[in-house]
């Protein structure tokens, strides 16, 4: 009888589903006969995403019993998910606020990178922009107000193309840090909101009159160590003399950019530490092992992935937190 079959099938399916593991941590056995097992779920900042993926790959090579799920959705999501227990680790690309610490946020720095202003390679005055750069004041005018401006205005060139400003629509560390650099925060940024770092990179690439901002490894291709096709970083004129002096000019390839971040030649903010956040100190063996690994063997992969290593003192103090 049709109904019998359906009923029986449904009962079987439901019981199978219920018993298979609908709890929050899934299968989580600790070290069994020396092998580490368990699952780790990670979500959050696009900034940390590529690094986390690389770390996961390498860590899983040594510990095949551990399964790690990573998704990106912005630093805000990482914090929310971590604090609510939705994920084991949140990736956060900005400073942790006191309110978040009060809610139970435990955080550990794992690497450094930076947010950089980006424009399209089709920009009509690209050469002049690269020679002169923009000062912080110009960025403030563009990103914090809605006054219309042309590309020619700030570099003394007769160009009347309107500047189209893009920002991030999702709650993220990149916008927060960029805002901080300009003296405010993400909310004060004005511009067309696009979701995600890849999103704004794409918008900048497609619109030749655009200006936006990106995490350094969404602007530079890890393989070629040069800017991704179609978009390029707009140099920051830090001393305000309306030229990019040799010591300000490190934007040619990824490695010189990273050296600049590490030495402090690139301003911080928007350079920043990147954190993993959890709700209280992590207790899952797999998670603790992963974090410890990151601060030891994991650091060797940082450079290749387009990030800046933490200083040795920083690493030891962070590792202390795990104990």
């Amino acid at each position, binding site marked *: 009888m049709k*109904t019998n079959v359906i009923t029986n099938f449904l009962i079987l399916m439901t019981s199978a589903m219920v018993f298979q593991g609908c709890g929050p941590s899934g299968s989580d056995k600790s070290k069994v006969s020396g092998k580490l097992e368990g699952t780790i*779920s990670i979500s959050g900042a696009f900034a940390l995403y590529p690094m986390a993926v690389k770390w996961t790959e390498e860590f899983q090579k040594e510990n095949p019993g551990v399964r790690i799920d990573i998704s*990106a959705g912005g630093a805000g999501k990482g914090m929310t998910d971590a604090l609510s227990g939705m994920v084991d680790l949140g990736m956060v690309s900005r400073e942790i606020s006191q309110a978040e610490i009060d809610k139970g946020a435990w955080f550990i720095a794992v690497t450094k990178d930076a947010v950089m202003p980006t424009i399209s390679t089709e920009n009509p005055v690209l050469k002049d922009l690269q020679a002169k750069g923009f000062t912080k004041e110009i960025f403030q005018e563009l990103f914090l107000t809605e006054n219309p401006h042309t590309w020619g205005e700030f570099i003394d060139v007769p160009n009347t193309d309107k500047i189209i400003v893009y920002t991030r629509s999702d709650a993220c560390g990149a916008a927060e840090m960029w805002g901080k650099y300009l003296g405010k925060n993400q909310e004060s940024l004005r511009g067309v909101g696009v979701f995600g770092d*890849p999103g704004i990179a*794409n918008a900048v*690439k497609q619109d030749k009159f655009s200006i936006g901002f990106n995490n350094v490894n969404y602007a530079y291709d890890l393989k070629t160590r040069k800017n*991704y096709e179609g978009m390029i970083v707009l140099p920051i004129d830090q001393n305000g003399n309306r030229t990019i002096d040799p010591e300000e000019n490190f934007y040619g390839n990824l490695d010189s950019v990273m050296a600049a971040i590490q030495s402090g030649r690139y301003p911080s903010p928007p350079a920043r530490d990147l954190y993993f956040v959890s709700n209280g100190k992590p207790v899952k063996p797999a998670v603790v092992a992963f974090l410890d690994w990151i601060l030891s063997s994991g650091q060797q992969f940082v450079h290749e992935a387009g990030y800046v290593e933490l200083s040795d003192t920083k690493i030891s103090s962070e590792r202390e937190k795990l104990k």
Partner: protein
Amino acid sequence: MKKRKQIEEKFFRVLMFISTNLIVIILLLIIFSILYKGLPALSWSMISQTPKGGFYFGKEGGILNAIIGSLYLSIGSTLLATAIGLPVALFMNVILVKHKRFIDTIRFFLDLLWGIPSIVYGAFGFTIMIYFGIQTSLLAGIITVTLFIIPIMVRAMDEVLKTVPVGLLETSLSLGSTHSETAFKVFLRQASPGLVTAILLSFGRAIGDAASVLFTTGYTDHIPTSLGQPTATLPLSIFFQLSSPIEEVQERAYASAVVLTVIILVISVLARLYAKRYQKHKINF
């Protein structure tokens, strides 16, 4: 006077012709643009591999995680919704048949529920998840999507069951069956092609919806092996990967779009076939 009326009529007839054709053209345009971008991206490795190097970033691999994830999610939620929806539809049309006002109230309720946007279900599902401490997972997604498609499923089934002649009910009862036997054995069998159409349509809605899974199911590169794990879905595969500046990542989005569109088209065709079979199948008293 007459001339003016004729011109007016002619004018509107032209407009009508244009607007009818416009709709067909738009549909073709949509399908064409998806295929145009997606077919080149489609390859065996695309549908048989998961993304390598992170779905936002890595250049190799494909969308198998999204395909399997979506299938798990949609099949799970469709089954669950059928388990809840089918009895309700049967109850309304077999047992409550005499209480017209009661049925009409339920129908009214269902019509109200029917239009509630999936994001409301998603937001609600997210709240429930936090309350119960469930992580973003296949299970959370299934529950949310099930709630979302229940009104759709029940309404569609109700439409089908409405057309089963009352005479059937009376005959069956007079032969000694209980009400629920009549419902599950007689009406079900009679209406089965139509009910299959309803199930297919609900499946189509379930697999294509993004707002309900955005908060609840998460996203991952892996294929889920248990209900407690997050899973990738085709709609989110498109949403997240579409706006990437990295070509290979964008390709995955377009490939997902094609796969999703093809699945929907196949379901539409199947649903129509079953609907036709139902028409032929119907007994009339």
